């Protein structure tokens, strides 16, 4: 068996140029993770009051950077690397034209650098540029034009990446007529179709409104419209993060567990469901928006609840596949088979712990989705508690675990220390459990998210779950453990670069137990699914968008422009002046009986 592995070429042996691109993408991803983690620990200590070496105004710069670098840069650079590997590996052929590949990579890198610079310039007043608008950049808060431009370049880069993979698949299809799309490529193509649909709205919002507005070409934007266009994109983007993780759970995890994927057809069904349902649910991020009718919110709620289905199906398939592997390794009993699994393998354990936390995140997500119950937790720190479990663990930890498995095949170097890798993933689990649990509890007390100082002068939070102060401490401990875990991950990967090369690192993936030949052909009919997806999106969004535009106009009813580098003293002074003027007018009115305003 191991003689075969010794002889089997690794991915980098077979496709050296593609491996270079994938490594470049992943280094970009890990750089973003490093920066995001540094800002994360600063935020954790600041917010909980343990250490505030920076000003609270700078906190919002850290927060914007943490959000953008982690959920745009870290996740999507990893995705493009992973998907390139998956397409090339499953089609067993190189990309059509690596010049195009380097072009899209370059666009993504340049775009993210532009946006990053515009955010980080907010730390110094010597550069008149900032973007303290947070990852959601809601108007009328306005960032520097470089912020929006960078995002546009980055997203167009991802569009070209998708085209690159589609064209490679089409070339393969010409060479292999009548064959089913290999599963990993199928997953890549359906994910990218979802992405094209999703990014239509954010591209429209930025190119038609926000960017011209930041350049002074138009005077005002409609806050409700631009918000709605953001969340049209903002929900499917979480599936853009999640579907690469699902790809790893479906196609790699069973192999690491010693087994095979339970069902290829069901994996296809799940990805088609995500393609269809990810976008028509965005309004569930806007349950408490004035300006959107309740009926649309109710529809979004029902769509969201049905979106639970593919994740629940994934839970079954993944556990079944892992159990199959465990029993092949000799595991017995109703639960005893768990002991037969390769827990010492950080790739395996990382993905399993990520899946476990995802279940918890899914439950808190059900609360978020519950329309009227959303009142209790909207914009509280419960929401970050939820998404640190989902993107922060299900996605991030799976990516780290996947990196442990994939990196040796991209470099021919074994991982420097699997033991540290195992400690790292367990630490992530523990740190996230502590931090996220504290966030959920504080959210129920009413503690807000997105704030530098959650303690207020005029009131005390209700006392429950140990109370605000203790939960702050738990949050900070969790966040610190997460930071240590990130350092261990990055160090492990970086030091691996100096490990001596080795052979025998190939890890071929076995076919599924129930293979693609069992999958109904209609599943591969991508045109059909695109059509249905577009219809569903139209049904979910045409009326709400038309309603917003007819109510308050394409450019809004005259909202002002609020560049985020307005300094607080000016804002306060302006408001004070307005109050004084108002009081004076009222007094004059009372004395003379004549309105002066």
């Amino acid at each position: 068996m191991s003689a075969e592995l010794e002889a089997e070429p690794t991915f980098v042996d077979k496709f050296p140029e593609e491996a270079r691109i994938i490594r470049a993408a992943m280094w970009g991803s890990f750089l973003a993770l490093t920066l995001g983690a540094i800002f994360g620990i600063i935020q954790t200590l600041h917010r909980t009051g343990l250490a505030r070496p920076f000003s609270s105004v700078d906190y919002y710069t850290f927060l914007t950077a943490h959000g953008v670098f982690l959920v745009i840069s870290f996740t999507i650079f990893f995705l493009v690397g992973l998907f390139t590997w998956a397409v090339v590996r499953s089609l067993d052929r190189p990309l059509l034209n690596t010049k195009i590949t380097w072009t899209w990579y370059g666009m993504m890198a340049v775009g993210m650098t532009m946006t990053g610079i515009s955010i980080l310039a907010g730390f110094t007043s010597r550069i008149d540029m900032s973007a303290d608008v947070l990852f959601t950049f809601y108007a009328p808060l306005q960032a520097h034009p470089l912020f929006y431009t960078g995002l546009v370049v980055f997203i167009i880069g991802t569009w070209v990446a998708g085209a690159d993979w589609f064209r490679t698949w089409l070339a393969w299809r010409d060479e292999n007529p009548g064959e089913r799309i290999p599963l990993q490529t199928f997953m890549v193509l359906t994910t990218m179709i979802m992405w094209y649909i999703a990014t239509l709205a954010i591209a429209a919002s930025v190119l038609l409104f926000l960017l011209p507005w930041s350049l002074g070409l138009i005077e005002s934007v409609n806050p409700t419209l631009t918000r709605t266009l953001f969340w049209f994109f903002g929900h499917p983007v979480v599936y853009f993060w999640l579907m690469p993780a699902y790809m790893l759970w479906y196609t790699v995890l069973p192999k690491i567990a010693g087994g095979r994927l339970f069902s290829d057809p069901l994996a296809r069904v799940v990805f088609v469901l995500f393609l269809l349902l990810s976008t028509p649910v965005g309004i569930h991020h806007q349950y408490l928006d004035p300006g959107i009718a309740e009926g649309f919110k109710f529809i979004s709620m029902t769509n969201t609840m049905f979106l639970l289905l593919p994740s629940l199906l994934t839970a079954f398939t993944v556990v079944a596949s892992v159990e199959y592997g465990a029993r092949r390794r000799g595991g017995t009993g109703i639960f005893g088979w768990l002991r037969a699994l390769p827990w010492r393998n950080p790739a395996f354990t990382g993905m399993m712990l990520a899946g476990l936390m995802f279940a918890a995140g899914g439950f808190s997500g059900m609360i978020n989705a519950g329309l009227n119950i959303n009142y209790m937790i909207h914009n509280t720190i419960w929401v970050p508690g939820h998404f640190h479990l989902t993107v922060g663990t299900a996605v991030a930890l799976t990516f780290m675990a996947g990196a442990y498995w994939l990196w040796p095949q991209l470099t021919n170097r074994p991982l420097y220390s699997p033991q540290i890798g195992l400690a790292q993933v367990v630490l992530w689990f523990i740190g996230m459990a502590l931090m996220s649990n504290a966030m959920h509890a504080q959210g129920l007390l009413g503690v807000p998210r997105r704030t530098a100082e959650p303690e207020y002068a005029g009131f005390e939070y209700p006392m429950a779950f140990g109370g605000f102060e203790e939960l702050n401490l738990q949050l900070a401990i969790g966040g610190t453990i997460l930071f240590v875990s990130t350092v261990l991950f990055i160090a492990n990967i970086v030091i691996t670069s100096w490990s001596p090369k080795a052979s025998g690192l190939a890890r071929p993936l076995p076919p599924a137990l129930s293979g693609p030949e069992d999958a109904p052909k209609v599943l591969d009919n991508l045109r059909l699914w695109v059509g249905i997806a577009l219809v569903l999106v139209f049904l979910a969004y045409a009326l709400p968008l038309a309603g917003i535009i007819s109510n308050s106009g394409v450019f809004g009813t005259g909202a002002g422009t609020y560049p985020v580098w307005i300094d607080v003293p000016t804002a306060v002074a302006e408001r004070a002046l307005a109050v004084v003027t108002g009081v004076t007018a009222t007094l004059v009115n009372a004395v003379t009986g004549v309105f002066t305003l």
Partner: protein
Amino acid sequence: MHVHAYEKLWLALAIVLILLLIGSVTYGAVGPGIAMVADSQDPVDPQALDEDDRFAEPRVEQVGEDEYAAYVEAYQFGFDPDPIVVPEHSTVTFYVTSPDVIHGFQVVGTNANTMVVPGEVAEITVEVTEPKEYGVICNEYCGSAHHAMEGTFEVVSEEEYEEWLDENQDGDDTEGGAADEDGEEGEDA
């Protein structure tokens, strides 16, 4: 396509769970009658709020027996009026808007929570019971002093409310003077 028996069972349970969740939300909407913030109010011009008689002078106003309207402006970086004072055991409808950026309006520890969008007026109706003092915070990032943006919502006894009205008579509350009269005094909003 072969679907394992356990998988069919799991699929059925998943669909039951989804239907239960949708059912519980529907119950919340229909039974206790929890309405969502919606587009019930017409859009306004955020830079001309002083021409809107609700927000030129943000205030609490009696609109019926035990029914009050609170016209609130959320701005960088505070709330107006502050404090928002209402008497106990009454129904209060908040109308909240912003002259500048998007804010949040949350009565801490309760489910009175809404986005405040410039150009829109958010309407939510709550029922208050015993006298209590609540914090009001902005829970949507609105700029560099967002963390300092807070107010107070005070539910006071009938007597205290009358005292409050007397003290503030020359201020904003020029409509609907005495609070404990029956009948519709003041405007319906």
